[in-house]
Each structure stands twice: as structure tokens, then as C-alpha cells.
């Protein structure tokens, strides 16, 4: 199915919806696409008669929405209190340096995307990162490269989608 058809399917479930349906629609579209594309925002805007700037404003208010297509491996860095105390700022620094992208962005080769989350709920493993739901405990800037290399190897080994 094409991207537009996906969006239309979501919007179809919200026929005659008002602007109060915006957040559920954004969540459902992100569920399907993994992020909110410009195209999606325009389509949602037409459906709800809302300007794109307003939808962007609402979506940027919440941490949960992304505006870049997620990478093959989606990295979530926990910046909750326990992880912070145990040095998650340095872990995040190491990740942005190593990947060359800021939180919310995706590497140019499409392999990694980076996201900050408030608390993963695994404080005992702090500082923790999650890669496609797989947890890596007790991270340090030194360990980051090892973890990333393992995924890079895995990505190279597998045939890509396109």
C-alpha cells in the first residue's frame, strides 16, 4: 500500500472528526508509518481543516511524535533521573558523535535513528539504551561503539529492503 493510502485508511476511521481527534490521528498515522511525514500532515490538515503549522505545533509539543523516517535500528536513550545520575548525558553525547545525527534524526544511510525518552522503566540497568526494543544495560561512552558496530555488522549481512 502507498503512503497516502495508509493515511487515508486512518482518516477514513475518523470521518466527520473535529480537531479534538487530531492527537489520536497523529498517533495512528505514526503507528503505521513510524513517523509523521509532511505529506501526512497536509492530508490530516485537509481532513480536519487545520493548517499544517498548527498540526506541527501540536505534534512538537509532545515527545512521542517523530518527523523523520525511523532507521532500521531505532535507538532510544533513556534520560530519566536514574540514568541521568549514572551518566546518560555522556552516553547520549557519544551516540550523537558516533552517529553524526541529533536526537529525532535518522542517519543518512537509514540504518540508525536516535530518540530521547524520559524513562524506559529499567532504572536498575541505568544508564540504559534500547535498540528496536532490545535493552543494553550499564552503557558507557566506550561501550557505545561496540554496540553500534554489532548492529552495523548485522545490517551489512542482511539484504536491504530496496
Amino acid at each position, binding site marked *: 500500500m502507498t503512503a497516502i493510502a495508509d493515511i487515508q485508511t486512518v482518516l477514513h476511521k475518523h470521518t466527520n472528526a473535529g480537531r479534538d481527534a487530531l492527537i489520536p490521528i497523529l498517533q495512528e498515522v505514526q503507528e503505521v508509518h513510524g513517523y509523521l511525514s*509532511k505529506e501526512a*500532515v*497536509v492530508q490530516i*490538515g485537509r481532513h480536519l481543516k487545520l*493548517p*499544517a*503549522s*498548527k*498540526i*506541527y*505545533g501540536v505534534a*512538537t*509539543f*509532545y515527545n512521542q511524535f517523530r*518527523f523523520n523516517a525511523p532507521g532500521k535500528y531505532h535507538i532510544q536513550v533513556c534520560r530519566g533521573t536514574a540514568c541521568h545520575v549514572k551518566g546518560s548525558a555522556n552516553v547520549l553525547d557519544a551516540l550523537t558523535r558516533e552517529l553524526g545525527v541529533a536526537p529525532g534524526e535518522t542517519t543518512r544511510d537509514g540504518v540508525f535513528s536516535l530518540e530521547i525518552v524520559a524513562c524506559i522503566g529499567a532504572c536498575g540497568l541505568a544508564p540504559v539504551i534500547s535498540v528496536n526494543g532490545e535493552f543494553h544495560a550499564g552503557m558507557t561512552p566506550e561501550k557505545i561503539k561496540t554496540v553500534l558496530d554489532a548492529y552495523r555488522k548485522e545490517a551489512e549481512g542482511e539484504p536491504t529492503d530496496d
Partner: protein
Amino acid sequence: MNITVNGNTVEAREGEMLLTTLQRAGVRVPTLCHMPDLFPSGACRMCVVEVEGMRGLVPSCAHPVSENMNVKTHSPRVVRARKTIVELLPADHPDDCLYCVRNGNCELQKLANELGIRERRYAGKRTPDKMDTSSPSIVRDPDKCILCGRCVRVCEEVQGVSAIDFAGRGSNTVISTAFDQGLNVSSCINCGQCVMVCPTGALREQSDTKRVVDALNDPEKYVVVQHAPSVSVTLAEEFGAKPGSDICGIMTTALRQLGFDRVFDTAFSADLTILEEASELAHRIQNGGKLPMMTSCSPGWIKFVEQYFPEFIGNLSTCKSPQQMLGAVIKSFFADRENIDPKNIVSVAIMPCTAKKFEAQRPEMVRNGLPDVDAVLTTRELARLIRLRGIDLDTLEPEMQDTPFGERSTAGKLFGATGGVMEAAMRTANYLLTGEELKQLNVRAVRGLDGIKEARVTINGVELGVAVVNGLGNARRLLEEVRDGYRDLHFIEVMTCPGGCIGGGGQPLGTDPEAVKARMQTLYKIDRDGDVRTSHGNPAVQRLYKEFLGNPLGGKSHELLHTHYAKRETLT
């Protein structure tokens, strides 16, 4: 009803906000986010006051009056709160007032001064923002933004565009376009109303001053200038005069002193526009063309149609705006007549408008590789240029404008106000269709500041429905009604800005409706006292047709004075 303010009894009206009562009673309460006529947002808290019986301070802009209310507007508690607000704002604001475009007329500066703030009490972590210089019309400098939200509200509530909105959260909040794109690729229509309401230097026009000064200093260049009908009735305000002062002759002298080789009047080409546009209207009516025809003088409106209502592109008059028409005849007829290579002409336009800068850059406005108009300055930029050159307007004697494009009718002058194009067009359409002048030249039904005005006029036995709109929020409402078949109209005049060009985004800052009204009255006074009150009666326009253009809608007109539009894809 009566309320008590600082111990005095003050009369209040049922249902109004406390701030309105206080302002009427002459009690000055400072405001930042407040915009008269728009729904209160109560965001900045500058207007807080103490109300007896209320636990906290209340924002007077969003607090309705009630019987026997006891209000203190300047108690120590209130003043301390206001002071703290203003002390907090610079925590994320640069200290570069000296280099700021709003140095001297910044509302934040003024408030800090009024409240006696003399030191930086809060040094927050500054978040550096990137400047957006992508638009040919407007520069956004988020570093200077204090998030009052006035630009967002004017863009949404007055213009119906919503190119910008709040994005992010908490201390990361910024004003942003959708997906933080450059304004040039956003749905911004370049009207500059956001600039008019911005309290600080966060929004300003993209300045062409340097280009113009360079051209004036270049002996190889022949620099001509045109000025829009509304500029002569607003420029004086930049130098302290009261709204509604007309200084057309003095401005002409000042432009000569600045070094312009010729001074032309855009009101001349407004007359030219009327001949083309009234002929086009008559042609459409007689030949079953697309109706209602819509005016095309206002470039913000044109982009608005291209991006929101492409189905109405065929309804837009194909006439270029007066600015572009004059630009086109300067680089053709005038260049030939004076034997100047058009390549050496620098054509400057003084406009009440930021969107005119965008219009001048449209690819359709280029002929033989040369743009019709090379640079556009707003009224404000002209004032800066006059100050820069140390010209004292008070000492100047008024002078006449230059031939061949300096003569205008007062109908052309009316282009500066909402309803003016319609009135000028009606005068000429009547003449074109009947061979006679309108018995009553004043078309009162289309005058005034109402958002949408409608009238039925009968010309040559045919009843025409006409409508006049100012402010694009109103235009959107009318277009939707036209689209849904609720309106029987033949001709619609639309001006992007509230009040028309006299309230344009390039005018002296602020949107005081009283100032706009005074400017409007001056234009109608000029018309009332005018010798030539119809565009077709302008002898200079008649000569141009005789010597060069032939007839309205003829081949030369088509080549030079008409244009086309296309659907525009933007993130709306």
C-alpha cells in the same frame, strides 16, 4: 455599572473586559500580547491588576468587569509582578539593542524603561536560534522573539493563513512554520502584518536599502523611483506627524535629493490598471468570461489564491499590479523615448507593502531577462534612507513629479484604501460602457473599513454585483460563499491588509484603526478636491495609449501589462 479603580469610581459596560474599561478611563495598564479586536489570549500577564476578593492577580485583558469591582492597577504587588515579567524576558534575549532594527521603537525596551529596570537580574541559558532570511519579504529572527504570539494571531485570525504557530514546549518553545521550513517555501503570503504587530525586532522586512543606495551611488545607473498611492499619506508619521498628513510634494523633493533621476507616481499606473481592468471586466461580461472577476493588485492575495483556491485562478484579473505595470513601461516606452539602455535602468518602487518585494521577484515579472522592478522599499525603509541622508523634511519645498508617468487622477490615488480600486473601476467602467461619466462619482457603498462590503450598481442597464474585501480572513469567507453559490457577484476587489494599502505591512508600525481611518480620510479628501477624478480622464494615460500602447487589452498591453498565475504547492 460602576467599578472602583485606584479609589475612583469608573463607569464600566456590561460584558466588557476590565482592560477596556481601564483604557477608556485613561488608566494606562501596560500590555504585550494584547491585540484590540482579537480574542484575548492572556498570555503575557503584563496587564495584571489586583482585584479585591480575588486570590491572585488577574490579567485585565481577559477578566470581565463586574458590579462594584474594586481594582488596583499600580499597587506595589502589581508593579513588582510586572517588573519581574519584564526582567525575565531578557533572560533569553540578546543584549544588542544598539544594533537592532527596532532600537528606539521596541515595546520591550519601552516597558523595561517604564518599569525602571536597570540591571540584568536573570541570566538564563541562551538558546541560540537561527535567523530565517529565506523570504524576499520578511526576515525572522527568533532570538529576539519573546513569544507574545501576536504574529501567530494576526496570521491566523486576521489573514486566515496560519503560516506560523507555536512549536515545541516549555523553554524550547519557538514560533515556527510547519516543519520549521524557510518562510519562502511556507504558506506565508508575505503580507507583513506580523511585522506590524511584533513588539520587538523578531520580525522585520527584508531590506533592499543597500541595493538602492549602491545604485544611487553608481554613475552608470539611471535610477528611477515610483511611489505607491498610500505612501505619501503615511510617510510623515515616521517623522512624528499625526496620521493622515499628506506630503506628496515634499516626498518628491526628498526623493530627488536622495539622487533618484526620475520620480514617478504609481497612481499613474493605477489609472493604467483601471483602463485595462475595467476593459477586461466589460469584455468578460459581454463575452461570457469567467465571473466574478477578482482584482490582482495585491500580491499577498494572489499567492493566497494560488495556494488555497486554485479553482479561482481563472477569476483573477490578468492585469499586472500598478507597480509592475509602471516597471514594464519604464523599461520599454520610457527607455526608448529617453534613449537609455534598459539594462542601465534601476527601477525602484516605494511601497506600503512587504509582499511587493516578493511580487517584483516573480519569474512572470521578467521580460528579456530584465525584471520590471529591481528593488522595492517599504515606507519604513524610505524613512530610514531619508534619515540616513540627513534630509530635513520640514525645510523642503514641495515639487512636481516627472513626466511622463508623474500625472495621476485622484481615482488612481484611491488605490491606497480598501474600496478604492472598485470605485475607480466603476467610474471608468461606466464611461467605457455608456460613453458618459457617472453622475455621482462617489461610490459610497464601497467606502469604509468594514471587512466585506457589497453593493449592486447598474451600468448601461445591467445590474452588477460588486464586493470589496480587506483582510484575507474576510476574503476566505467570501470566496467560500462564492464557491458554494451563495453570492451573485460580477466583480470583487480584494486587498490583503486590513484597510487596504494604508494598513499595509510596509507602513509605519502598529495597526491602530484610528490611524488607518485618518489616512483613508486624507485619500478621500484628495479625491474630493481633485481636478481629474477618473482614470480615463488622466491625460498622461491617454497619451501613453495614443503614442505607444494602442488600445486597452491590445497586443502591447498584453505583452507588457498582463500576466498569468499558477497553482502553488506549499505546506498549507
